[in-house]
């Protein structure tokens, strides 16, 4: 699992490094929580396997998470459904978000910033243009990222059987926390 990620990262970083000015931060610790708040059931799950990089010079980023790494469902069956029926993690093993940072902020400087990240979010193989607000805390070469956003299942062609419509919200609340450190 690590290998293709490295390959991808190097592909992404390579053209940037060609500019010679890239300053890349990599996720050292990152987790994603989500919860579905449906009338009949609250479903929560989380994964600590968020990986990603941010190029603070060019203000671009790439984040990625393995769908199968989510744990904490109400039952093992639920996890199975999540992976097999809804997200089809064997076909679409990763969710990704890549794009640019709108605000012209020098993230190498210490400070707290509210920024908007715009890019393509791919979940369940369906790409969607998203604009996501993030709160960044930059301190001595470490960037802490915090962000809350929602994902509409319909946007990513995730179909909910009618029978579970009361148990699964069409709108999933996602919360991301990550710590990035400067790559040397």
């Amino acid at each position, binding site marked *: 699992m690590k290998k293709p990620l490295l390959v991808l990262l190097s592909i992404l970083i390579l053209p940037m490094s060609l500019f010679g000015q890239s300053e890349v931060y990599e996720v050292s610790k990152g987790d994603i929580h989500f919860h579905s708040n449906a009338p009949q059931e609250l479903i929560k799950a989380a994964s600590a396997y968020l990986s990603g990089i941010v190029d603070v010079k060019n203000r671009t980023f790439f984040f990625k998470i393995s769908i199968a790494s989510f744990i904490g469902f109400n039952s093992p069956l639920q996890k199975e459904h999540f992976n097999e029926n809804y997200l089809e993690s064997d076909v679409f093993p990763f969710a990704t978000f890549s794009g*640019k940072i*709108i*605000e*012209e902020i020098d993230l190498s400087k210490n400070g707290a910033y509210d920024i*908007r990240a*715009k890019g393509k979010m791919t979940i369940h193989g369906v790409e969607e*243009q998203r*604009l996501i607000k993030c709160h960044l805390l930059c301190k001595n070469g470490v960037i802490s990222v915090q962000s809350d956003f929602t994902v509409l299942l319909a946007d990513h062609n995730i179909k909910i059987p009618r029978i579970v419509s009361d148990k699964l919200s069409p709108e999933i609340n996602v919360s991301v926390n990550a710590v990035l450190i400067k790559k040397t």
Partner: protein
Amino acid sequence: MKHRRHLVLVVFVFFCAQMRAQKPFVRDFPLLEVSTGANVNALEQDKTGYIWIGTDSGLFRYNGQAFMRVYDSVHIPVTAIAIAGDDVWVGYSNGMIGTVAGGAIKKIEIKNGPTCKVTSLKTNGCNLLIAGTDEQGVFFIMNHIAVAINSANGLSDNSVYGFSVIGHKSIVAGTDMGMNEIRLQDGKPVVTVYDTKQGLPDDIVMVSKKDRGSGLYWVGTQQGGVVLYDMGHKAAKSIMPGKWQYGQVNDVLPVSGKRAWIATQSGYLIEVTSANNGNAILHPYLYEGKIFKKLLCDKAGNIWCATNHGLTMMTGEYMGYIKPGAPYSLYDVTAMARDSSGLWIAMKKGLYHLSLKDSMQKIDFAFAAKANITSLFKDDGCMWIGTFGDGLYYKNKKGVITKVTGIGELGVDANILSIAATKGRLWVAGLKGVEELSYTTDGKISLIKHHGKKTGIGSDYVYQLYPDANGDIWMATDGAGVCMYDGASYHHWDSSFDANGKVAYSITEDAGKDMWAGTMYKDLYHFHDNEWKNLRLPETQYPDVNISAIMANYTGQVISVYQRCVDEWYPLSRYSRHFNSAMGIGLDSTSSVLNCAAKDDQGNIYIPYQQGILVFRNQQGAYDISPNVRITQPMIYTKPVTDNRHVFDHDENYIGFAFEGIGYSNHERLNYRYTLQGYDAEWIYTNDASVSFPKLAPGSYKFRVQVSLNPAFEHPQEDDYEFAIATPFWKTDVFYVISFLGLLIVGYSYVKIRERRLKSISRLQQERMMFEYEHLKSQVNPHFLFNSLYALSILIEEKKENALSYTVHLADLYRNMLTHSKKDMIPLNEELSILNDYIQIQQTRFGDALKVRIDIPREVLENGQVVPLALQLLVENAIKHNVVSVAHPLVIEILATKDEIVIRNIINPKISKEKGAGIGLVNIKERYGLLSRKIVSYEVSGNEYIVKLPLL
């Protein structure tokens, strides 16, 4: 989450945004049968009036009544629409661009075109199509070739949202990294970027639109709200101090009157009005769960919103409502007035106040009268309150209400129907006439003059007093129609009003200084050029025509209130917009109290109805509610005419038309009529949107169809279709000429042939006469006669018994010769009997020296015909030319086949030739030539002479 929203609300009130008591009506159109509705991305109206709607489920066309899905072979979301003239272009989420042709979308092949979502599409009006995309910048497309303008050309970012086309050569586009002005200079793009460094509140510019009046741009941003931006000075004027609270701005729709509507991602529709002091007033309306993406204002003033759940129509430009809480009840409302503090509502004996400044819509009790309040008149911060049986009250500027005394003949317990003021004069109408009073600001009055039935009004009952712009006072009376007092004399127009019409309930003056009167049973009267004209149509569809109030706003619209509906007259369109229970606005009934309506200083009109109070907004925009009509589909034998033909073959004469009305005000009340010029001069009134004409004769036709909002078709809109049915070739002039010539030729040749035939007949006759003559001559040939007589004498001497039969044969021969020589043809057997007589005579003379052998089959004998005396002549010739003696007997054989008779004999010529010969054979030949094509032939074969005589 909920807590936060309350907090936000409080913040609104503190800042400049006003939550309004008044709300527009909204109506949702899901477009699809699914409960969530289609995701609408784009909206445009074409010049015909059709609204085009781009959705995730394809393109739709709307005519005000029905949505028509435009056929599309690719099932890709339509994300942008552009309209120029009759052309409609659509952009798709995959970068494809298509055009609408013949009721379907056709893909346009574009070289180097976009391959990602088209976010907006426009034309510059000169063949240039401009597409904004979400990843590849802007594309200028001309003649199927696209030129991309992106970050390589200086565009601040390749993610482009909405843009505006300025003139022919430049656009202003919003991107993720500021606003870009792209100007084509010498065919090359010059990009100027405006972002937060140039004063914009946010780098992500979602929309930029030029203001109608000023040269400023309305710039809507992702999180910085909306500003009015001056590109020249690079200065932004915020429309709202503090932080923007309404979410991402998706569209701004500038409308007339220094206003704009804003649509946001968070479900807000916001009306912005620029105030004179440079500030702006915001009226936000929240519709939770909706994402407003695009706005469109149609011709009639409806605002259409593209949302994530279908289409939403909003009446904010012309109408709204207020929903006051308890104790509001339509049936208790007796009078209304509007001043700067809000709305005053009299409900029976109580006077209530409704502040319109906030959304609380709480009714406050203000005053209790001893009798029902019938009339409220606001006057410069004060108010006059008229009651039914308890006289007049006055509310001063401090809000203190006191009873007013001294109102002339009306008395302290007066029944007051109407109150009005002109310069320094107060007019009060009661059941005893009208009092003209002078008054002071503290409510002291003194009588100037009493007006009544006897002074010249003609009636003591005056329902409404209305001072016009000239200061003349108009009175709606019961029994004397409308009366106008100009300060000196009374004016009546009794002749205009018949018996029922002498009751006028209500009177008003419109923005064009025309007067309007509402009457009992006779509906509405319009006073123009010193003449009253009744506007009640014979086909009027209202069950009750009693108008309880009429009132005009400041821009020309006249509102008339009926028991169950309200009409709004549009002077520009010359139609009324009709509001009733079918609108889905809860308008089941209005107040039956006369003149129960109010108008504010902006010209907005307030009318009570069951659910609250209707607000007919003063319209700054010159909205036009006229419908339009389009012939959608000409058809030949129910098959649509797809090519642009207007000339049809003579057998394509079954022509049908489908048409549809396009209108955004009362589409259900549209009336249609049509005529086919060249076929029928009459207009045919119909509700059927299709018509067909079978068996049209060749000729030129013009199909005309008209639509009107009133059944009288006073100023209808029209569409037409000219076509011709070709004349079949046998009815063309060319054909006539050709056939005339043909006839001439036929006639000429007939005459010629006949002439020739006549000539030949006469020649035949001539020939025959000649023959007859010759023949007779030959028969009376002295030789023949001599020989015959000599033979007879010998017979008498030697064989007496034979002499008789000889004489009989001779006589028969002569008789037959005389009989038949006149005929053209004779049957063969008759000819043979002549020949037989002749042979008998000759054999008597020659005896065994002459032998004639006749062998003719019986059927030939019966059917064959020959020229008369032909055989006799040939035998005679043979006898003439040959030796006939016992030593050399002459043998003549006469044989016959089916076609001819052959006469032959062995040649044994005489030494001395008999005279008179020669004419016989030639004559026979000529006669045959005249009668038929068969030729008489003769030949010498060996020692035989053979003549072949064809049978006729």
